[in-house]
């Protein structure tokens, strides 16, 4: 747990979206205890896992949700060229800091900075690893 952290990052906003969604599910089921929440972390967005975890748990408390187990699953960034069909993994750590930060906020801007290594096209698809998503929510007793 990170204590005393000033949340200045947009992971908080991402956590807000996730918790709002879980809260809706919780209301529908009439259960506020979640035995397991699995979050998929697409590495393209370079999410700070510790900050996201802290934000989720803080927001859970504020929203009267109890999360017993929070699991993160990393998903590699895989891109596929729509022009030549070439598929490749993107190593986000190789991007310069400015680009990484831009992609962190809006993953689709990767189209501005990355091109197909085979044919040079920037018309490609983000097959995997775009951003964060809820993979699984298990409510206690469900």
């Amino acid at each position, binding site marked *: 747990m990170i204590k005393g952290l000033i949340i200045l990052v*947009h992971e908080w906003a991402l956590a807000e979206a996730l918790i*709002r969604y879980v809260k809706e599910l919780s209301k529908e089921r009439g259960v506020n205890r979640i035995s397991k929440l699995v979050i998929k972390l697409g590495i393209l967005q370079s999410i700070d896992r510790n900050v996201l975890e802290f934000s989720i748990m803080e927001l859970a408390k504020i929203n009267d949700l109890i999360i017993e187990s929070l699991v993160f699953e990393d998903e590699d960034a895989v891109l596929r060229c729509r022009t030549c069909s070439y598929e490749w993994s993107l190593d986000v750590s190789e991007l310069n800091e400015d680009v990484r930060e831009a992609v962190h*906020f809006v993953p689709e801007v990767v189209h501005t900075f990355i091109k197909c290594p085979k044919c040079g096209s*920037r018309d490609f698809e983000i097959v995997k690893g775009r951003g964060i998503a809820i993979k699984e929510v298990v409510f206690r007793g469900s």
Partner: protein
Amino acid sequence: MGLDPRELLIEERLKDVKKVIAVVSPKGGVGKTLISTALALILSRRNLNVGLLDLDITNPTAHLVLGININELSPKEEKGVIPPIVAGIKFMTIAYYSKDEAIPLRGHEIVNVIREILAITIWGILDYLIVDTPPGLSDEVLEILRLARPEVLIVTTPSPLSLKSCERLIRLLKDSQVRIIGLVENMSYDMSAKIIALCNQYSIKYLGKIPYIKDLDNYVSKLEDFIKCKFMEYLKDIVKKITL
């Protein structure tokens, strides 16, 4: 899990925005960006809290009208992102991230960008959020109509093609029960009667015309000059007629 979690957050982000106005037109090159930006500037000079969102995702240009160097400005990160204030307007654009480079995107990717931007942008209290949109009824327009339920300001030129397209747009917006604030005729020459007739036919307010201003391009990117140019004067008269 059908619902995108970001949509729930978008409601929260827009809850303190009193009115969202989308500036739309079915045709490109009719002056939406100039009108959106000028409208935001005029309203902000009435001591109102105004935001401007450039929703032309693949071709953002509002920052050029405002004359800002996109490489020197970026939103402040604070539990989301807070748009910088430019000339009294809270201004948000994807160009902060894509810079002045092309951003080739397909439809579902554009939708993703819009949801991401609307979910992370913290506007705070606004009297008006003006949204500049790309031409036509593309993903940007459909998504903002759905997510922000704006009122709509239509811009057209007097060209017959633009008018015909406008009529289709008006029918669609009316069917969708979107409030149309009115129609602005831009780059006007001598066809106002037909545009006024179109407005009357569909019970839409004709807000007035802005003539073709030859040297307008000279004022773009020079904010101080733009604020004082004839285009702004015409638009101020139009804004007086708008029931906001």
